[in-house]
């Protein structure tokens, strides 16, 4: 295997606790309840979100790191946790004013936020647990 092929995936776990409501503002309450069930409760509900950030690349020959995990943790705290932790995703963030804060969309937003701060030579993937049993990955 050439050096170029010796890629390693490194993972960092973080978490944030947030309220949200899943609904389509173009629909009436009845249709929202039919499609989204309890998730469209108008007074919001919440989750402990578990975030796993996967970065893939060739380890640097001088450090042995794909990426310094302390740096990744700091970037994630600045770009994600400070914006989402202990927040209401619908009311307190700009990203979900016009975007339904499903786990899918949250993962896509988080990807875009981190992608801009991480070396483009490194691959990036987000896994987001909404609950222990429901989680998403982006890009799929």
């Amino acid at each position, binding site marked *: 295997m050439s050096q170029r092929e010796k890629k390693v995936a490194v993972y960092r776990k973080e978490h944030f606790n947030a309220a949200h409501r899943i609904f389509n503002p173009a629909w009436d309450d009845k249709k929202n309840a039919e499609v989204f069930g309890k998730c469209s409760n108008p007074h919001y509900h919440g989750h*402990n979100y578990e975030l796993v950030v996967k970065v893939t690349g060739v380890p640097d020959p001088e450090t042995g790191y794909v990426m310094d995990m302390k740096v990744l943790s700091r970037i994630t705290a600045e770009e994600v946790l400070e914006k989402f932790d202990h927040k209401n995703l619908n009311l307190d963030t700009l990203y979900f004013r016009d975007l339904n804060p499903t786990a899918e969309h949250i993962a896509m937003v988080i990807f875009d936020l981190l992608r801009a701060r991480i070396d483009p030579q490194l691959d990036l993937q987000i896994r987001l647990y909404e609950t222990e049993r429901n989680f998403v990955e982006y890009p799929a």
Partner: protein
Amino acid sequence: MGYFSGNQYPVHKYEMVYLTRLEHFNAAHKLYNPGWTREKNEAVFGLCANENWHGHNYDLYVTIKGEPDPDTGFVFDVKRLSDIIKEQVVEKVDHKNLNLDVDFMRDKMCSTENLAIGIWQQLLPHLPAGVQLHAIKLYETPRIYVEYFGNGATGPVAEGQ
């Protein structure tokens, strides 16, 4: 209850067993004392005072205790226990706002401590005679949980308590 062995007198050995059922609910809440200023709430509760709420996946462990029934081997049918927990607690709190939507949390601070006490009080009247409620263990996050043992009240809660 006793059992005989030949011509011996009945011997009863009391076997206390603790049975726990786990349920889950996802809810929004905030820690905000309406009698305080916003500054004082933020100083005391930090991020938890966000007026637009935040949320958690709560894990609820309900523990009862008793002696296994000689016919079934059960302290209590755990499927019935699950139904009681779902009817009296989970349906009232799951995918709800604990500050706004839950009658038994009205006018109370929505801490995990008070929620555990409220859950105990919701369950107690609906458990059959002979089933003793032992503990409520409530995880707010994987790293934070509370336990409530009823302070001696394993029967119906007296008024004023």
